[in-house]
């Protein structure tokens, strides 16, 4: 009896009363966001868990010197001023960049943002002798800012960064580098574990509560310096739900208001129940990256072109519930760097067969290839069904594909090592299937096409080394005129497509499903999303 009374007291009276009081007194708008990660990404300044994590604990709590315009969905974003209002390269020494810092900006803890904070944050990730050096944050961001050689404060509002070589694309590296508060680190006893629970940046949200693997509450920073980007929702609760079906169930059940990556099977039910589905062009591609090393079956461009013509991409898009777009190259045709490739990637089985015949392959003499793939994981979409579909499609043009299936973490090892490595070439592996982020010129093009980045010096996995492309990339790195850069980048992309460097299959569209309670959300054409645009 006692327990029944207690339940009645707690469940039927106390909870509604508390909710009513809370609702009446604060009238706080809350968006509960089911994210696909198994844990909340690092909150200390440089998020882990890849590019997709920056939207959650990166660009919410912190700001970079140069930001990416992520609050627009109708066109690709561009670099915009962040904590630096202006950046210029030195006319005499093109390796030297000067950044004019924004005045009057304060960290969440109330301390002032100035040049010392920028140098302190650069030391945090690049100088392992500095007391604030954090190996975890460093590991996340060092590969993303590879050009920086040195840096110094010129005055309270000017910082100078010197790059290793002339690199006109250097500003694209800076949206990855986020600025945290040195004062907060000192206040918390120089303990990064404590900073993770009480971080302090200059961003549009403050972290109010963090329960590892369960939730992170971000509350609106009403004093945010960019009044055009004030959060439209008072509180965003990030809830890690790694299982896609569970995420969809939580949305259908009303436990969350918005989810990432709903499973294709559930889309009809979501739509029928009045939930909104939002997706957009996203810098991602799902390819087979070929080895062009001697001995690889993919050295003949006719074969590489044939496989690009043998895939019915619309069928794969259908398999994915419409949550993808057919690829015409490394980039989506709406990209300013797409160019005008001569090779038109489409589904044309007779043309594919003709190319295979020209290359000397027939039913009696099929081409045999071993391809390493992951069983699933971030960016891999529906890995196994998609790969099996491609395997069947390629069989139609006399290519016998054998898969080596590994976990994604293991696939990364094979990727970093390059096609020539013993773990790949030695085992007969001649192509790798790994979803690629293609967010900026480096990520989309140069890291795969530049001869200097042939693995293990970079992730030019297959060893592509085209002198014309290398020359164009050298010019891009030395050119500070954006129009010239764009033209040369388009040329690089044209060459990549005409050389059929990869089998490009689809681009992810980063789908989100949301309840009708979510009135506003702008999905940028990027992995960086702006959570300030969520309005309830």
């Amino acid at each position, binding site marked *: 009896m006692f327990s029944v009374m207690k*339940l009645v007291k707690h469940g039927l009276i106390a909870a509604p009363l508390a909710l009513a009081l809370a609702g009446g007194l604060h009238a706080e708008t809350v968006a509960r966001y089911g994210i696909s990660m198994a844990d909340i990404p690092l909150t200390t300044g440089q998020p882990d868990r890849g590019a997709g994590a920056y939207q959650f604990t990166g660009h919410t709590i912190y700001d970079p010197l140069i930001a990416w315009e992520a609050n627009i969905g109708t066109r690709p974003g561009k670099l915009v001023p962040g904590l630096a209002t202006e950046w210029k390269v030195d006319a005499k020494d093109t390796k030297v960049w000067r950044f004019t810092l924004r005045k009057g900006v304060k960290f969440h803890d109330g301390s002032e943002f100035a040049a010392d904070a920028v140098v302190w944050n650069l030391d945090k990730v690049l100088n392992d002798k500095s007391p604030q050096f954090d190996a975890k944050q460093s590991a996340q961001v060092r590969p993303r800012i590879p050009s920086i050689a040195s840096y110094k404060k010129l005055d309270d509002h000017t910082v100078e960064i010197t790059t290793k070589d002339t690199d006109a694309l250097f500003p694209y590296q800076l949206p990855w580098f986020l600025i945290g508060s040195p004062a907060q680190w000192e206040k918390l006893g120089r303990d990064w574990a404590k900073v993770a629970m009480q971080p302090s940046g200059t961003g549009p949200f403050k972290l109010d509560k963090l329960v590892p693997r369960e939730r992170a509450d971000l509350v609106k920073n009403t004093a945010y310096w960019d009044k055009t980007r004030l959060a439209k929702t008072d509180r965003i609760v990030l809830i890690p739900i790694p299982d896609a079906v569970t995420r969809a*169930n939580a949305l259908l059940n009303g436990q969350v208001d918005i989810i990432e990556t709903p499973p294709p099977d559930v889309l009809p039910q979501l739509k029928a129940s009045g939930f909104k589905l939002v997706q957009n062009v996203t810098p991602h591609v799902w390819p087979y990256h070929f080895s062009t090393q001697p001995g690889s079956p993919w050295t003949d461009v006719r074969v590489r072109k044939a496989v690009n013509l043998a895939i019915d991409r619309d069928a794969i898009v259908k398999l994915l519930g419409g949550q993808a777009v057919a690829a015409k190259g490394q980039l989506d045709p709406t990209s300013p760097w797409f160019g005008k490739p001569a090779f038109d990637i489409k589904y044309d089985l007779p043309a594919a067969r003709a190319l295979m015949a020209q290359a000397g392959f027939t039913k009696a003499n099929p081409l045999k290839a071993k391809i390493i793939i992951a069983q699933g994981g971030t960016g891999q979409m529906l890995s196994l069904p998609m790969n099996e579909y491609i395997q069947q499609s390629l069989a139609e043009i006399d290519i016998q594909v054998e898969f080596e299936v590994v976990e994604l973490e293991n696939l990364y090892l094979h990727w970093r090592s390059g096609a020539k490595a013993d773990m790949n070439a030695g085992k007969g592996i001649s192509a790798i299937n790994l979803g690629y982020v293609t967010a900026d010129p480096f990520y989309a093009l140069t890291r795969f096409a530049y001869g200097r980045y042939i693995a293990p010096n970079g992730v030019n996995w297959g060893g592509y080394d085209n002198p014309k492309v290398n020359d164009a990339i050298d010019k891009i790195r030395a050119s500070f005129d954006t129009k010239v850069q764009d033209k040369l980048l388009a040329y690089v992309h044209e060459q990549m497509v005409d050389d059929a460097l990869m089998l490009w299959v689809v681009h992810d569209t980063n789908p989100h499903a949301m309840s009708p309670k979510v009135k506003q959300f702008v999905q940028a054409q990027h992995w960086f999303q702006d959570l300030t645009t969520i309005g309830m």
Partner: protein
Amino acid sequence: MLLYLLKRLLYTLPIALGVTLVSFTLVYLAPGDPLNAIAPADAPADVIEALKVAYGLDRPMPVRYGLWLARAMHGDLGASIATGRSVASEVMGAVSNTLVLASVAAAVGVFIGCVLGALAGYNAGSWLDRLASALSVVGVSIPHYWLGLVLTIVFSVKLGWLPAMGAGPGGSGEWLWDAEHLRYLLLPAATLSVIPMGIITRTVRALVAETVNQEFVVALRARGLGRVAVFRHVARNALPTVLAVTGLQVGYLMGGSILVETVFAWPGTGFLLNTAIFQRDIPLLQGTILVLCLFFVALNLLVDIVQPLVDPRMGRG
């Protein structure tokens, strides 16, 4: 009895040491790189090398094991490579969440299993026996993952009665044993209870069916003892084996179910292991496996101690 206890305690020492060795080395056998937990996939070789040194992964494995064991014996399981948080606090938080889930699932599974098994054993060959046996086979065979999803679709999505995931409205840190929180527990606990229920039903059924046909039970009945009194004797004879099976089942439940905890986003040991495995977070993986194995060893020790108390024949060696 004292000698029996001492022997059992001594047996646990080499087992515990073996557990530390296996939990340390096993994770290195899996393909993949622990530095994937912290370094982006395209991290250059110099970053990877610097990280190896920073995390001591450049040292030979016996040295690493020795250092890890020395720290572990002092209760320090190190820090997670991925998050930097203390492994001990991560594991203990997850263990307490799994304890909540497992205790309810075990109570439900053991209770229903004992009742069904006893009914089936007492009425061997009847329709009740066939029904109980069928339920136990279903319980043992049904895939957890599938059952969890079906229960969620029915009770959360279609009927809207229960939450689909999570460990309470404010997270597990604010867990209370009240109606609001128990709503979050019902579906995962029901899903998790099905296997122990099935196994215990089968065990109890077999034991009871065998015991009721023994001569001493015939003698008890001949002396005019009622059904309840006879059942007490039958139950006492079945209890040691039921205890041993229950101990194993509770041990399995404490290990958490990776599938059930992932389906319900329940932040227990299974969910933690899932995260650690996919991130190759070796310190977290080693710490979690170690604590769970020691839990298992302790639970079996407890069963070994309790068994002679309910069946004095066992203590006599």
